[in-house]
C-alpha cells in the first residue's frame, strides 16, 4: 500500500520529502562525512567502510528479520557468525593444504566459495535446530513475556555455544592468511585485496537475492505477512511453523555467511561472535528495531563510524563512541533513525 502511494506522486516530490526526513538526512550526512574523511585521511576509509559495512549489513539484516518476524531479540546472533567462520575454516583449510600439494587454478578459485556456501547451510541448519528444539517448546508452553524470555534463552544458547566451541577446539585463533592468493588490486591508490572485494561483492549479491526473495516470491511475502500479523497470516493459510523455521534459518545462514566471508579479517575463536553481535545490535537500535531494509543502510553507517573512531580516536574506543551515539539517539528519537516497524516502542 505504501509503495502504491509513493508511485502516485511525482518522483521529485517523493525524493525531496525523503531527503528531509531523518533517514534521508542521515544518509546524506554519512556520505558527506565519508567524503570529507576520505579527502582528509585517504580513500582507504571508504574502502574499509564499504567492505565491513556490507557484512555488518548481512548480520543486522538477520537480527532485524528475526526480531520483526519472531519477536526474538537474538543474543546468540554472534554465535552464528562464529559457526560460519568455523565451518569455513574447517572446509577451506584442508582444501588449501591439498591445493599446495596439487595446484589447480580452477579449484583454488572455487574453494573459498565452497567454504562460504557450506557455512550458510550449516548456519541455517543450526537455526532450524534451535527453533525446533528451543523456541518452539517455549512458544508452546507460554507466550507470556515472550520477548524477555526468548532474549534470556538466546543468552543461554550463546553461553553454551561459546563454551562448547572452547571445550572442543580450544581457545586458539583459527585463521587463514587469505582466501585468494593473488596480488592485491590497485584501487584509488589503495591496495585492495581480492578477498575484500569478494566479500563486498558477495554481500551485494546476497542483499539483492534477499530483496528479490522478500518482495517478489510467494514465500517471501508470507514471511512479511507473518511479521505484520501472525494471526492474520494463520487465517489465510500460511504454514506458520514453516515460516518461523525458515526465518530463523535465513537469519542464521546470513550471519554464518558473513562470518565465513570475513574469516581472513576475523579469525575463528570462541568469543569471536561477541563483536559482530554488538555491532549488529548497535545497527538495529540505531536504525529502528525490526526495520529490515534500514538495517542494510545502518550496517554501512556503523562501519563508517567505527573506521573513523579507530582512525581518529584510537583502537579500543570503538565501543565507547557508538554507545554515546546511541544514547543521543535514544534521547531524541527512540524509534530509531528510520523509524521502527515494530509496534509499541513506547511501553504502553
Amino acid at each position, binding site marked *: 500500500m505504501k509503495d502504491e502511494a509513493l508511485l502516485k506522486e511525482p518522483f521529485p516530490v517523493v525524493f525531496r520529502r525523503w531527503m528531509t526526513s531523518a533517514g534521508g538526512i542521515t544518509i546524506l550526512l554519512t556520505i558527506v562525512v565519508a567524503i570529507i574523511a576520505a579527502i582528509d585521511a585517504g580513500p582507504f576509509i571508504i574502502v574499509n567502510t564499504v567492505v565491513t559495512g556490507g557484512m555488518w549489513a548481512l548480520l543486522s539484516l538477520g537480527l532485524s528479520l528475526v526480531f520483526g518476524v519472531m519477536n526474538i*531479540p537474538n543474543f546468540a546472533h554472534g554465535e552464528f557468525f562464529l559457526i560460519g567462520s568455523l565451518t569455513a575454516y574447517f572446509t577451506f583449510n584442508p582444501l588449501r593444504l591439498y591445493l599446495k600439494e596439487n595446484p589447480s587454478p580452477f579449484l583454488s578459485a572455487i574453494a573459498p566459495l565452497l567454504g562460504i556456501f557450506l557455512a550458510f547451510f550449516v548456519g541455517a541448519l543450526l537455526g532450524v535446530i534451535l527453533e525446533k528444539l528451543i523456541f518452539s517448546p517455549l512458544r508452546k508452553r507460554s507466550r507470556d513475556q515472550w520477548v524477555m524470555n526468548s532474549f534470556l534463552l538466546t543468552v*543461554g544458547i550463546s553461553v*553454551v555455544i561459546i563454551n562448547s566451541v572452547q571445550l572442543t577446539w580450544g581457545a586458539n585463533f583459527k585463521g587463514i592468511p587469505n582466501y585468494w592468493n593473488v596480488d592485491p588490486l590497485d584501487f584509488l591508490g589503495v591496495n585492495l585485496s581480492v578477498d575484500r572485494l569478494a566479500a563486498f561483492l558477495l554481500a551485494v549479491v546476497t542483499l539483492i537475492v534477499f530483496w528479490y526473495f522478500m518482495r517478489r516470491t510467494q514465500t517471501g511475502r508470507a514471511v512479511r505477512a507473518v511479521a505484520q500479523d501472525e494471526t492474520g497470516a494463520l487465517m489465510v493459510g500460511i504454514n506458520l511453523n514453516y515460516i518461523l523455521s525458515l526465518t530463523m534459518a535465513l537469519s542464521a545462514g546470513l550471519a554464518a555467511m558473513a562470518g565465513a566471508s570475513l574469516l581472513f579479517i576475523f579469525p575463528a575463536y*570462541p568469543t569471536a561472535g*561477541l563483536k559482530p553481535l554488538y555491532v549488529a545490535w548497535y545497527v538495529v537500535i540505531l536504525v529502528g528495531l525490526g526495520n529490515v531494509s534500514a538495517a542494510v543502510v545502518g550496517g554501512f553507517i556503523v562501519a563508517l563510524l567505527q573506521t573513523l573512531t579507530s582512525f581518529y580516536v584510537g583502537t579500543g574506543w570503538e565501543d565507547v563512541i557508538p554507545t554515546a551515539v546511541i544514547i543521543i539517539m535514544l534521547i531524541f528519537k527512540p524509534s530509531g533513525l528510520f523509524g521502527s516497524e515494530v509496534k509499541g516502542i513506547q*511501553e504502553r
Partner: protein
Amino acid sequence: MENNAQAALSDGATGNGRFTALLNATGISPTGLTMIIILLVLPFIPPFNQEHILRWLVSAALLGAQAIAFDFTTGYINVVNFGFAAFLGVGAYTSGLLAVNLGLSPWVGIFVGAIPAALIGFLTGLLTLRLRGIFAAVMAWFVGLALLGLTRNLVDLTRGPMGLSTPTLLNTSSNRPYFYIILAMMLITYIVLRKIIGSRYGLAFRAIGQNMDAARASGINPTYYRVFNFTVQCLFAGWLGGFYAHYFGILTPQLMLTARTVEVLAIAYIGGRGSLWGGAAVAFPFIFLIEALRSNLTELPGLHLVIYGLLLVLVMIFYPGGFAAFYKRAVAWVKGLRDR
C-alpha cells in the same frame, strides 16, 4: 505469601509470637533462619574451615547477594539489567580508586562507590525505561560495554588490564572474617529489598511486571517505579562491588565482562524469579559444584559456563519457577503427607 504460610507452620514449634513477628518483619522464614545459622557456624566445621573452601563460601555469598539484587529487577518489574557486572565494576573501581589515590578508608569507600553506580543506573533507566523492556536490557548492555572499554582504555587512571591493586578491608590473611562481612551484606541486601517489595512500591512493581496496561489504569506511573527499582538495584550492585574491590585486592576490567552478568542471571533464574531468596539459596551448592568441577577438570575450561547456560535454557523452557517453585511444591507435598 509463602513466608506467612511457613510462619504459621512454625508457630507451634517456636511458640513465640514476638519472635515470629520479628522474622516476619525481616522477611526471613524459619527455614531461612535455620540456613543462616548453619552458614554462621559452617566456617568452623571441617572440612569447611579450610582457607580455600572459605574462599568458595565468600564467592558463593557474594554471588548470592548479587542474585538477590538482580532478581529485585528481573523478578518484579521484568526488566533485565544486562550490564549488571559493569555497575558492580563501577562501585568496585570507585571505591578502589578512592582508597588508592585519596587514601579513603575502604569501609567508607564501599558505601561511596555505590553512589556513582546508582547514578549511572538512574540515568540509564531514565533513558530507556519509558521504552519497552528490551531497550533497557540492550542499553544497559551497551553502557556496560562502554564502561568496560573506558576502564580498559583509561590506563593512567585504572591501570587498565594490568590491574589495580587495592587495599583490603582487614589486615588478615584469613577468609573467615570476610565471610561474615559478606554474609551480613547479603542479609542486609535481602532484608532491605524484601522491605521494599513488601511496601506499596513492591505492589506497584508486581503490577507493572504482570500487566503494564492494568497498572497504568490503576494510576501507577510505570516509568517512575521502574526507574526507582532499577536505581536501587544498581545501588546495591555498586555496594557489593565495593566489597569485591577490597576483598580480592586487585581489580581488572575482566570483572565487568558480560559473562559475569550471565553468571548472576543464570543463578537468579535457576533460583527462581520473583522469589528474591532463590538465587541466594542455589548460589552455595552451585559454587561448590562448579569449583569442585573446576579443580578436578582443569583441562576443561568453560565447562561450568556450559552448565550454567544449559540449566538456564532448561529452567526457562520447562520449569520457569526455578528452585523457589520447586521448594514451594515440596513444602506443600510434605504438608499434604502430614495432614493425611
